């Protein structure tokens, strides 16, 4: 396996450049993103790593055009497939969100509607994005669930979110996100709240899907274990700034920023090598 250099990715899928913004009318009080720049390589797994308040989530939400009301971007661009997403209005974004860039949110069960069956939700989403017939959408929904290794799909289609365990709900959320064949998938803390044994299964699935479909994946996480195991490129954020960008191997083996070193030490709790 060749590990390409991170800093000059030949053909990145996403280029965030100088993203700056904050809350308040001027976007400056308080400022939560300060000159955030990074690139996400195509067809591989990357991660944005940071703790609470680092700005990692708001960066990801800005990329799919869901930054919270009250957040104002004052500067910067989000380059994706040859356009700057930062300038798009809500309607223009709808053509991109879901179909080109999809996001799975942290609490998978909370992002599913408890009052509709899983099959109905999936099919409705597929119809909304592709305009296919009901029966075709249903078939595509079944296929999507099979694709994320959910057993007994016919029965599962009729079930409701509360009948799914955390790991299974995470798979459904993945199926939902992948159902419209996006090129870039953002995963917000995909394994938080799942048991380690289930985490490993979910991550294996994500890696497999990425390899099979050439999908570019960006994890938003604080779990350096998952990052070290699976990611190729890492962006470390703190207090709204990018403090380090590196290939995963370099980041873990020779971290340059003191904060990165601190995070690595904190993950291992003094280390048990």
């Amino acid at each position, binding site marked *: 396996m060749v590990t390409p250099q991170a800093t000059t990715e030949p053909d990145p899928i996403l280029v965030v450049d100088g993203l700056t913004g904050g809350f308040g009318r001027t976007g400056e009080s308080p400022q939560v993103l300060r000159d955030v720049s990074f690139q996400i390589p195509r067809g591989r797994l990357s991660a944005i790593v940071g*703790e*609470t308040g680092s700005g990692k989530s708001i960066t990801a939400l800005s990329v799919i055009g869901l930054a919270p009301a009250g957040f104002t971007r004052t500067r910067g661009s989000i380059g994706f497939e040859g356009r700057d997403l930062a300038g798009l209005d809500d309607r223009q974004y709808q053509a991109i969100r879901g179909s080109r860039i999809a996001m799975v949110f942290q609490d998978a069960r909370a992002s599913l509607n408890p009052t509709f069956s899983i099959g109905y939700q999936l099919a409705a989403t597929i119809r909304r994005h592709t305009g296919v017939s009901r029966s075709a959408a249903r078939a595509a929904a079944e296929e999507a669930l099979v694709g994320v290794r959910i057993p007994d799909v016919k029965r599962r289609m009729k079930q409701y979110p509360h009948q799914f*365990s*955390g*790991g*299974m709900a995470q798979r459904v959320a993945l199926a939902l996100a992948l159902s419209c064949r996006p090129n870039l998938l953002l995963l917000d803390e995909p394994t938080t709240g799942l*048991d*380690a*044994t*289930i*985490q*490993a*299964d979910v991550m294996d699935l994500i890696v497999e899907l990425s390899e099979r479909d050439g999908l570019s994946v960006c994890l938003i996480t*604080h*779990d*350096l*274990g*998952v*990052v*070290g*195991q699976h990611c190729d490129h890492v962006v470390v954020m703190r207090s709204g700034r990018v403090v380090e960008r590196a290939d*995963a*191997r370099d*980041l*873990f*083996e020779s971290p340059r920023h003191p904060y990165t070193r*601190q*995070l*690595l*030490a*904190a*993950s*291992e*709790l*003094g280390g*048990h*090598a």
Partner: protein
Amino acid sequence: MPSPGAGSAGQVEGAANSGPILRVDGVTMRFKVAGNRQLTAVDNVVLEVHAGESVALVGESGSGKSTLARCLVSLLEPTAGVVSLDGRQVSGLRGAARRRVYQDIQLVFQDTNGSLNPRWTVRSILDEPLRAYSDRDPGQRDTRVRELMRQVELDESLLTRRPAELSGGQRQRVGLARALAVEPKVLVLDEPTASLDLSTRGQVLDLIGRIQRETGLACVLISHDLPVVRHIADRVFVMYLGTIVESGPTEEVFRRPVHPYTRALVAAAPVARYRAPRDDYRLRGEIPSAMDLPSGCLLAGRCPSAIPSCFEVRPHLVHIGAIGSGRMAACPVSAAAIASAPVPSAPAR
């Protein structure tokens, strides 16, 4: 670095009897569920904790660790079995006798948002157990509240704040201070760091370690975070579907797990290194419901090492002398493998 097993005894001076401070003998907790069925959350658990010692209960969600914790602090009355504190039986007590027990064993809750009254100030939160459990006058209580704040390394200026005005780490420290207020002998910590950021997690753990060294407190840690367990616990008990499947000194259990469930847990724990070599030992599927449990080994359906007999007989926890003292596991298949040949240990992490 805690030396497993050995460091525990000498720390508390004049511990009247050298017996365990906390004894759990055959504790079982069953719940009635709709349809006249039963859910066995904790099944015949036996464990002992000595003064100054830290033990951890680990397992996936649904393994019964939190239910057991609630039995330990008498928030739940076990269906069967006995919990004893310092030689006194705790289960079945009522009224004043039970209240005395609460002073000896305290629980730090996982969710600080749900366990601290949002309308109270930090001062009232810390003052409440003192009013309830001591006859200190207001001045003495105030002194004690300040002492507690120092103990958990919080600034006194936070006394007038409410939980929502604190960070996650600060709230966890307040929860800890409240538990310490009545000077318990045993502290039960239910996922104390689950909601904390990485850097805060380390600080809170160091604080717990320091308080333990200073006070000779025994700790029962409930966690699924293996690095946290390794950091704190002298001994570990691995739970699966309400039963203990393996126990022993933490480092030894994690370095050389015997039970397939422990091995899978250790294998699945992510290590913050680039492509850390890992053991590919995986369980199939997810933890089943604690209702209608099979008659054989509870793990058999998910276990990569299962043989036909595993589905018939439920194995008991037995000593595995071949790999050191204090090791127990409930897996005859692995035990036989160890007895016949030295098992390759899990890759060093």
